[in-house]
């Protein structure tokens, strides 16, 4: 159930993680896992098509880093991505508040 629910909010989570600092896919997944206390654990490979889509939409841009022993594709937010993140965060606040108010016992 968590996996399915997560898919609907994956863009927000990815943008929020990358808003802090540019990162490669592996680091994004690690961050997603550690920040959620291991709750958000999607199959790692499914994150990449989502990152590529966000890049096609102009919300992210990527570049290849040769600094380490291995080539890494580093993603970072574009100005359009920052705007989109702010909008999604607002929507999420309203949504989660409404859910809380509805299911609170």
């Amino acid at each position, binding site marked *: 159930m968590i996996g399915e629910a997560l898919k609907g909010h994956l863009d927000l989570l990815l943008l929020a993680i990358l808003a802090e600092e540019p990162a490669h896919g*592996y680091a994004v997944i690690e961050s997603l896992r550690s920040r959620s206390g291991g709750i958000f654990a999607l*199959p*790692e490979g499914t994150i*990449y*098509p989502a990152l590529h*889509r966000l890049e096609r939409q102009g919300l992210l841009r990527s570049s290849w880093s040769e600094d380490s022993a*291995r080539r890494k*594709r580093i993603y970072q937010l574009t100005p359009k991505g920052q705007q989109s993140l702010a909008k999604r965060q607002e929507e999420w606040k309203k949504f989660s508040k409404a859910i809380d108010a509805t299911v609170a016992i």
Partner: protein
Amino acid sequence: MKENQIQTYLRKLERQLWVRGLADKNDLDELESHLLESMERGLVQGLSAEEAERQALEHFGKIRTIISAFEREGMNLMQKILLALAILSGLFIAFVDSRPTWDDTGITAGAMLLSSGLLTLLGYRRPWLIALVIGLWTPLYETYLSRNFHFPGVILFPLLVLLIPMIGAYAGWAVRLGIRKTMHPA
């Protein structure tokens, strides 16, 4: 040299992505880099090379899952527009070909060849689908008009006609791939 589990996995994944017109060298390099990093993490944790590979692949996901994710996310607006154009081209060719005054099979075949080649050259990622939606209407309509529903003609005729847009679509796709490789050799 014996291929390791990650190499085998990536080879299968690449083949599956290629069949769907989704294979991209940069994307595959990125996935390989992820798997190797994940494996290294396992080695640091004290796992054997074999266990570390297995764990990396387990966390990464089954090939089918990854393919589904790529397919789900890969259908962007441009792809939808190109597919719609292919359907319209196929219907138009079938319409012209079905006119009683039309008697030039060569031009019909040429139109199929050109339109399918052009659409994959422009960037549609599934040549087989382009060939299908361009080439299927003409034989279907022809079969309907002739009322010849007998086997094997009813199967062989559409397959034979489909060969033409199939050649065009894969030719356009191959040219695009060649151009892309020339422009981005890495």
